[in-house]
């Protein structure tokens, strides 16, 4: 659908790329990155709004790097200020379709489809867009972008200003648009939850460089670099030395938290690695319950030193006995209530080998080349 080859750009002191990225027809790719990572610039280059320094953009097998935006036929939903304030709601929606001189019958049929999909009935007749709520504005902007019948839709942090309930409704709509209308979506966001919820594939962009591209599980459980792990809010990251490499490739790590991990390519005895585990992957061993075979190793005594509540979950900060190591352990509310922990309580935790990830420390800035999506 779209292929980005060795794309670089410069804006002041900021350098983007080189970026290599593909999105297949009908795919949904999210680009996750913190503010200032270059997400918007990347989209704007693909849209033809910003010229790259080097590299190529291909759309459906045709190179479009030098084509103006109006000839690329990529729909675009920017973060805010999307609607033209001098036009009515219906004129906003019809803007692109009229500009592209589409057949009135085609416009009418697509418009009806979008009215049904995005529940636009009540707001279509409004004379001014200034009276719309944030969610209504984004629905109108989405309809305007989709009415010309694009095969590719770019979204730039489209829901960042919306409240959680409306955001979720629109996220569901986007999945429908992707599945039912066959529109390929390239969606940039700084919101980890949104990126993981919507993207079939996720690309992590940090500091203008693509750090990892992969499936939800790849990105979430197997970060390719420390930067990615941090962007994905991995709380429990430690630096350790490889003490021993077993015949099956797993490692024993030295130090006051003697972990057994699945190992990582390129690291051998004596090398320093970063090892981590997501807070929801830490297992609390219930007293008196039998311990399964995968929980027999990496078993530690610990003490609860802090408890934070987050609506649906609680995070326990525990200090591992006889070490300076602290871990965050995330529990759903029901489990937290069942266990009834308080600050100062002692407990046993297990770090499953399959839940631990390890990275050679010199790979923390490793990039992903020629990522295929």
């Amino acid at each position, binding site marked *: 659908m779209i292929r980005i080859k060795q794309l670089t750009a410069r804006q002041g002191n900021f350098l983007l790329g080189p970026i290599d990225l593909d999105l297949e027809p009908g795919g949904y790719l999210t680009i996750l990155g913190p503010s200032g990572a270059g997400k918007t610039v990347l989209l*704007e280059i693909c*849209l*033809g*709004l910003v010229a790259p320094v080097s590299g190529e953009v291909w759309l459906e097998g045709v190179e479009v790097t030098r084509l*103006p*935006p*109006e000839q*690329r*036929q*990529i*729909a*675009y939903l*920017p973060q805010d*200020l*999307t609607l*033209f*304030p*001098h036009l009515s709601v219906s004129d906003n929606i019809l*803007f*692109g379709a009229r*500009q*592209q001189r589409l057949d009135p019958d085609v416009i009418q049929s697509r418009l009806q489809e979008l009215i049904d999909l995005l529940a636009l009935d009540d707001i279509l007749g409004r004379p001014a867009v200034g009276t719309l709520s944030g969610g209504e504005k984004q629905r109108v902007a989405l309809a*305007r*972008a989709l009415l*010309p019948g694009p095969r590719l839709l770019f979204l730039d942090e489209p829901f960042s200003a919306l409240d959680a309930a409306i955001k979720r409704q629109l996220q569901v709509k986007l999945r429908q648009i992707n599945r039912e209308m066959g529109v390929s979506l390239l969606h940039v966001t700084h919101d980890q939850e949104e990126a993981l919820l919507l993207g079939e594939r996720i690309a992590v962009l940090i500091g203008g460089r693509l750090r990892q591209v992969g499936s939800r599980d790849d990105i979430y459980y197997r970060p390719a670099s420390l930067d990615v792990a941090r962007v994905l809010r991995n709380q429990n990251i430690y630096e350790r030395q490889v003490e021993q490499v077993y015949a099956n490739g797993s490692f024993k790590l030295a130090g006051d938290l003697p972990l057994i991990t699945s190992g990582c390519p390129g690291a051998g005895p004596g090398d320093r690695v970063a090892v981590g585990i997501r807070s929801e992957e830490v297992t609390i061993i219930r007293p008196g319950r039998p311990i399964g075979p995968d929980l027999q190793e990496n078993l530690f005594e610990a003490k609860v030193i802090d408890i934070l509540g987050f609506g649906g979950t609680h995070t326990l900060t525990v200090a591992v006995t006889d070490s300076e190591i602290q871990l965050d352990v995330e529990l759903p509310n029901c489990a937290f209530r069942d266990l009834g922990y308080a600050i100062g309580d002692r407990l046993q935790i297990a770090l499953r080998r399959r839940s631990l990830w390890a990275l050679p420390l010199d790979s923390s800035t490793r990039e992903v080349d020629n990522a295929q999506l």
Partner: protein
Amino acid sequence: MTSVVRDLPFRLALIVPLVVLTGYFLLLLGSQYAFFSAAAFLNQLALPEIQAAIVLSLGSATVSALLAVSIAVPSAYLLARWEFPGKRLLDTFLDLPVVLTPIALGTLILMAWNTPAGRLLEGVGLTLPFTVAGVVTAQFTVVAAVALRMLKATFEQIDPRYERVARTLGCTAAGSFRRVTLPLAARGILAAFILTWARAIGEFGATVMVAGTARGETATLPSSIYLAMSVADLPHAVTLIILLLLVALAVLFAVRFALGRRS
């Protein structure tokens, strides 16, 4: 101590200057009363040279304001949107007519018409001394920079993302300017035209330098006031001043309306 009493000095510091300024303006306007009679005003309006001055002022201000806004719209848009080396220098240079005294500007126009380029323009019929073209040229020179400044501010207030979205919806660069930017800037353009027109109709220094004050030919309302006062013809001067006052009031209300509707 109540907050009203405590804030009294500050409130007075705000109110007194406003009262003084308003009083001063009322004094200026009221001073016309002693010299004004409706009959004399109507008699003066019937004089051919006053009618000629009115027609010339309205016509030349309209033409020069239209010219200024026509040139300022694309120029201001370019300055608001594009980045290029020397932009700040160019921006400052284009402000020069705003800070130069109109007399000096008029002199510069006359001197420019004595250069080969100026003689070339004269050769194709654009003669300035003692002509209506001279009046329009002088007014245009004074007001073009004012129009440019106002319109640049107007375009800078319009978020360029609207144009970017329009491009992705199928508009060319010119199309997005025409269908999105110009409608969004319409009130600002109207306000710029009205103020530019008002500035042009009141222009005196450059106009007198370039086109002179030939009664019934190149004498505008301001230069006619000067002529009347130079021979102590107060009824004539008062009539012209009242005409200019009426024009000024109409312009101020029109601008308020244009900008008020925009906000």
